[in-house]
């Protein structure tokens, strides 16, 4: 590049360090894997059960996040600077909070002696902690801020000018939302959904505390990996195999979403 906008050479060094930090651990994992044993490890009943549960809960959590997160982002983006700022700060709190703390907080809200959980237990006999539903709630709790931030940014970029025009053309608020606002922020929604899903798929801390580690009910891939890794030497190999599987699943889903996102733009 000789267009005068080159990067100072000195900055290549920290950039290389950053890249190495991100990529080398995965390389390490691949190198360290006991490849002949990998197929057996990933088709084991335990692994498949954990994978199935992970996909099921992460997809459910992501769908829930989209359904409630897009409207929340809309409210934040269209509120005044004060209320919007306050809502944004509170909504993104889980982002800066250790997931373990989130797990404890959820337990104290929805546990048998919790604020809401106590009422649910007494009135309906519903107990949330240590169920698959608890996994979905924990994943939604940690993943929702990613979606909200991404969609809210898209809404701010899109602005309200197109919406105003649509209104003067006779479109009701609902029609404007459906036919103008949503299509305009679609890239932001897709990006947010990807982040949200990735976060839900990898969720460990809040799930471990709030949902526990029951095989087939709450033991998702991260918990299965943790359990395997804490076992004897042989089990550590299956932890590595499961980790690789989780990485592959995440990458495949990212690629699928990417192709889905770019497809409509290619249409003439």
């Amino acid at each position: 590049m000789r267009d005068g906008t080159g990067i100072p050479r000195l900055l290549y060094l920290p950039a290389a360090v950053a890249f190495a930090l991100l990529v080398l651990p995965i390389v390490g994992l691949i190198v360290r894997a006991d490849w002949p044993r990998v197929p057996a490890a990933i088709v084991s009943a335990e692994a498949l059960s954990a994978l199935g549960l992970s996909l099921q809960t992460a997809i459910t959590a992501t769908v829930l996040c989209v359904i409630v997160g897009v409207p929340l982002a809309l409210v934040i983006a269209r509120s005044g600077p004060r209320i919007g700022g306050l809502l944004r700060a509170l909504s993104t709190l889980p982002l800066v909070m250790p997931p373990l703390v989130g797990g404890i907080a959820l337990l104290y809200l929805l546990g048998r002696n919790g604020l809401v959980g106590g009422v649910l237990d007494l009135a309906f006999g519903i107990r949330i902690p240590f169920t698959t539903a608890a996994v979905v709630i924990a994943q939604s709790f940690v993943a929702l801020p990613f979606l909200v931030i991404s969609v809210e940014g898209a809404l701010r970029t899109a602005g309200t000018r197109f919406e105003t025009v649509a209104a003067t053309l006779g479109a009701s608020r609902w029609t404007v939302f459906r036919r103008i606002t949503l299509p305009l922020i679609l890239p932001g929604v897709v990006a947010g959904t990807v982040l949200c899903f990735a976060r839900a798929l990898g969720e460990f801390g809040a799930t471990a505390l709030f949902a526990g580690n029951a095989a087939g009910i709450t033991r998702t891939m991260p918990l299965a990996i943790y359990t395997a890794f804490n076992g004897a030497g042989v089990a550590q190999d299956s932890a590595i195999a499961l980790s690789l599987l989780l990485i592959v699943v995440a990458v495949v889903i990212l690629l699928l979403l990417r192709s889905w996102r770019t497809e409509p733009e290619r249409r003439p």
Partner: protein
Amino acid sequence: MTLIADLEVHRGDFTLDARIRVDRGETLALLGPNGSGKSTLLATVAGLLTPRRGLVNVDGRVLTRVDEAGPTVLMSPHRRRIGLLGQDPLLFPHLSALENVAFGPRSSGRRPVRGAAAGGPRATAADARSRALRWLDDVGLAGLAARKPAELSGGQQQRVAIARALAAEPGVLLLDEPMAALDVETAALIRSLLRERLAAANLATVIVTHDVVDALVLADRVAILDDGRILDSGEAADVLGRPANRFAAALAGLNLVEGTLEAGGVIRLPDGRPVRTGDAVTPMPDAGDRVTAVFPPTAVRIVASPTVRASGTASSDGIDAASPAGDQAVPFPATVARLEPAVRGVRVTFAGDDIAAECSAAELLALGVGEGSTVSLSIDPACVTAYPAKSPLGVMG
């Protein structure tokens, strides 16, 4: 459709207090400098701003009413049937030109008026598209119906925006400097297209502009808005040909001075300078009434050195001496303040800042005139129009 808006809007320190009335088939041009409240007026009529006090009424249908007398009415923008077209076409980027135009018919809960009658209150997709295609054809873009806005030029985008605004079949159309973002040639094309389309649509139109050409081409009536108030309104020929104040005169490209009428068609300015008019002053002012005189900058001739000695003291020498012919200019001295580029040559302004002259650069060079030079000015009486000063308020009927 008759639009009546009588509004008082406050935004920070700024107050808009204006009343307009536009009938069906009529176009009102609202002329004013930046910050005069033009866009605020339009936004309030469209329902995007809430007035502190006022009324917006289309054919007796109350769209906005804020007063002490009754409950506040603020109809939401999408129910008003008021179209808005700004300088930015704002075509929906994810929709094709055709889909943009079809958006109004498709979205509004109104029975279509134009074209094939649809069964329901809302046009079907196919019906909306076929009507949209006709609107696109009307603006000469039927061939580009499938294009996305990003694949259209600025002028083409504005044409689509015009078709889109009209396809929603508004009763009132508000145009907010629709040609301001276009180059001169494209602006002229869009202007004639608008004139043609507005005549066909037969709606009440308000166009906000600071370009006098928009008013000349598009408007039946002109109103001058300055600092939130309407200073003058009426036929373009009257408002711009006989401007009420210096702002309106500047829009029309005229110098405006005020004084009292003396014998021999001389208007004596307060500081004693004389301006002679060749025509009779109509209607004849009462003795001592203030008279407005307007003349184009090209009618002001610059003469090198003062030929009249200190006529600012205004003894009657200039007038009486010049009276034999009766149609000759009465020169007076002036000091050059600034030279600015003009369309044809150089625009010269003088100390006191009420008169500007335009001449060629060659003439100025020949005279050896620069900033600070003392010169003599003579104004061609044949180019001076004089009339009794208009009262600044209460012109609006």
